[in-house]
């Protein structure tokens, strides 16, 4: 019994030594996402879960969706009018613009995001509609809360580039994670 208890303590201690929670705040932020860029020589399995983005009440819902690269997003129209889903660029790259389609209530459209970055979602029929998908290059990502605070759990120790996306603009900082680590951003 005594032996077992000692083993558990050692194991937990070991885990704490190799990962931690990256957390902090984003000053002056609206809705924001924080993502860790891909760590060289580390490959991640393709996500198997899809994500949902609705068009409801003449708005994209949620207004901000954060996903991992390789995730399929299913768009649905919950309004009684036709909607369109398209984006003119990904992180400003117009070559990655795409028109998912125009559809009525009850139909769905899907798209698999293979390019990381900020995706400004538009409906060309209702130009006031604006949504955002942030595609993270790694499985380490989160959406900041209303006060701009964020935390990403179980980040392996190491050196990363962390990017905060706010209103389509990126703030990238280098960070060395060693156990629980703090990193604050100042939104542009």
């Amino acid at each position: 019994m005594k032996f077992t208890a000692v083993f558990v303590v050692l194991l937990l201690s070991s885990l704490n030594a190799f990962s931690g929670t990256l957390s902090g705040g984003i000053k002056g932020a609206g809705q924001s996402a924080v993502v860790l860029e891909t760590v060289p020589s580390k490959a991640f399995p393709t996500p198997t879960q899809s994500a949902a983005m609705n068009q409801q009440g003449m708005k994209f819902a949620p207004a901000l969706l954060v996903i991992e690269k390789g995730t399929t997003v299913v768009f649905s129209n919950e309004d009684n009018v036709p909607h369109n889903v398209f984006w003119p660029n990904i992180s400003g790259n117009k070559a990655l613009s795409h028109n998912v389609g125009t559809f009525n209530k009850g139909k769905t459209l899907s798209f698999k995001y293979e390019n990381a970055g900020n995706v400004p979602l538009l409906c060309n029929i209702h130009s006031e509609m604006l949504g955002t998908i942030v595609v993270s290059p790694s499985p380490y990502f989160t959406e900041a809360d209303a006060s701009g605070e964020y935390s990403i759990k179980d980040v392996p120790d190491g050196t990363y580039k962390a990017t905060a996306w706010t209103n389509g603009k990126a703030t990238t900082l280098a960070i060395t994670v060693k156990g629980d680590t703090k990193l604050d951003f100042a939104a542009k």
Partner: protein
Amino acid sequence: MRHGITTPAAIFFLLALPSFGCAQVITPVVGESWLSHLHRSFDDTSMGKSSGAYGPSAPMPSAWPLTQPGLQLSIKFTGQSTTLHGSDLYRFKCQGCHGVSGAGAPPEINSVLDPVRATSPSMYIERMKKACMYVTSKDAAPLAKQANGMLLDRLYKGGTDMPSPNPTLTDAEVRSLFAYLRQLAGIPGAEKQQVPVVEPALRVGEHIVKSTCHICHASVGHNPSPQELSEAQIPPLSSLTSRLSLNEFVTKITTGTPVLEGSPAIPVRGRMPVFTYLTPDEAADAYLYLSLYPPSN
């Protein structure tokens, strides 16, 4: 020049006129009102109320009995064909809900302007530029084509909350209405692309009754008593021509008249909107249509 046509013989003459040049099949208005179809109460909707105008205030008892102004129909009101523009079709079929500007009454009634503007690639590029979003012509063209297809589909078939454009629009009517919608939405050059259509008076009446009156009025049903009117019941279309003379009907539609409500019945300002954007001739067309094509179930 306008003529007053008030005698029963003249009214009978108007009703007996054939519909020359009618390319469409005119049918009676049938079924429940659109509000009933949506399970929406008259007091909880903006549908059909875009004019924002109601009849005159109730007269004092000393002014009873009430008198009607003389019927003012134009000499052109002969029951024969008339040239309509897309703006006329818009008044008959869309304005009751979407209003004169097309802005609707959000969130219940959506604007028609954005879906129409979306059919213009250049306008979409300009609008997005103002929002600091840069859309290329290559991207805008297929988007506009899709928006165009969706809008045409809606003009032909209607939507979930929006009734199908009853009666179904002909291709010529769709072209005419679409051209006006583009002008209403401010698409450059659209005002020079208006397309007139020639329609018989009965078709005009059919448009007005089915697309405007039928929003709130069922085709047939119990004719409410003054007490039931005060309890918010709405008379069916089938009772209108038997209850009201042509003069009374046209006056009620275009300027409004007090309604007898309650028990004992006294004249009050009615709840029905006044359709200030319809002419006496057009209201008479609706009466003509209701008389020759009695509403059915």
